[in-house]
């Protein structure tokens, strides 16, 4: 019994473009969210999503069906995000919040009914600090957190995606959490 994705991958490998479009449909949103949370930039997130699918497409014949397809595709996407974060100038992450955190997603943590001008100001200040903290979170912690919260992967699955033992994943979760706690101290 093989997964739907593995079956689609086989079909795509035989040249079935529709099958590959199905794979894209299944994963593009998850990958976009993940890339956006990693990079805090919409254009870069979209680029990563495109690059990920391109790599998947070009390497379909190397997909190992004993591995979950999601593990494989998250691995590719996570590595692309980490590469981009590494290539950034150190100052970039400090400025990043100003470039991309305004807009629709800035206020979505509270239901719209509760929004008053005051609460929005207050909330956006807190959120600005949170986003800033998230942006300064080192890639190795961030990737673990994004996979955990956004993709809701188990620690074991995160280990599979990142190719590291669960104990390392745990250590990173703990250190990432402490990193954020220190950054957020004044709003906690």
């Amino acid at each position, binding site marked *: 019994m093989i997964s739907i994705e593995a079956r689609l991958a086989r079909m795509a*490998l*035989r*040249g079935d*473009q529709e099958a*590959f*479009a199905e794979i*894209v*449909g299944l994963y*593009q*949103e998850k990958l*976009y*969210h993940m890339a*956006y*949370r990693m990079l805090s930039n*919409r*254009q870069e*997130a*979209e680029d990563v*999503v*495109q690059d990920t*699918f*391109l790599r998947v*497409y*070009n390497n379909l*014949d190397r997909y190992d069906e004993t591995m979950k397809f999601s593990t494989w595709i998250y691995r590719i996407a996570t590595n692309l995000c980490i590469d981009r974060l590494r290539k950034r100038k150190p100052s970039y992450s400090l400025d990043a919040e100003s470039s*991309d955190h305004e*807009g*629709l*997603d800035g206020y*979505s*943590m509270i239901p719209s009914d509760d929004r008053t001008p005051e609460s929005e100001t207050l909330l956006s200040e807190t*959120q600005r600090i*949170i*986003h800033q903290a*998230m942006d300064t979170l080192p890639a190795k912690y961030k990737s673990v*957190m*994004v996979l955990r*919260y*956004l993709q809701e992967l188990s*620690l074991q699955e995160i280990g599979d995606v990142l190719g590291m033992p669960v104990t390392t994943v*745990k250590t990173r*979760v*703990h250190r990432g*959490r*402490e990193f*954020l*706690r220190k950054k*957020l*101290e004044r709003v*906690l």
Partner: protein
Amino acid sequence: MECKVAILWMHEYLDDDLPRDDVIQLKEHLLSCPECRMRFEQLKRTEAFAQAAITERITIPVAASAGRSAVSSASLTNRIMQKLPQQRRKQGWMRFVRNHPAVTVAAVFVFVMMTSFLAMWGQSSELIVSGSDLQHVVIDGDTVIVPAGVQVNGDLTVENGRADIRGEVQGNLTVIDGSLQLASTAKIVGENREINQALDWLWFKVTKTVSGLAY
């Protein structure tokens, strides 16, 4: 309990990985240690904030910057599909051919031979005479006669019939699923073969095809 252990257990607790008995011990420590209590509160909020920040709903790729209108995820799919390399569309099998040339050639050859073999085998109940010079050959019912004094210039092949040779065949004489009668006046310059088994016949077809290909 040491505060150092307590902090480690707080993280385990937030990971959902702290055994029930240890949870009770951790709670006992928290009740007696204000510093750890505050640390625990901070970590819980950090966890909540981080989770909220990461899972905040965002739309794909929404109108964020000027010049880009809201685009649906369907058009992202289209953009991705258009970026794919064009060469491998319907050519999945070409990859196999590239990777396994010998196997592929052999498989294709066997396939072609088997299909043509089966097709020919199935319909070959009628008399078939072939050769390059048949104008003096006499066909009488299922008997192919090369009359005395007649010279066939080239090969002669008779399938599903009797060959009655009284004259000369300058090339090879092949009789398939039939019988051969050679008169004392008969002369076969080339090879004289009788083929009655399917495998022999297949082999005959194969070698004929291969030598045909070689020309």
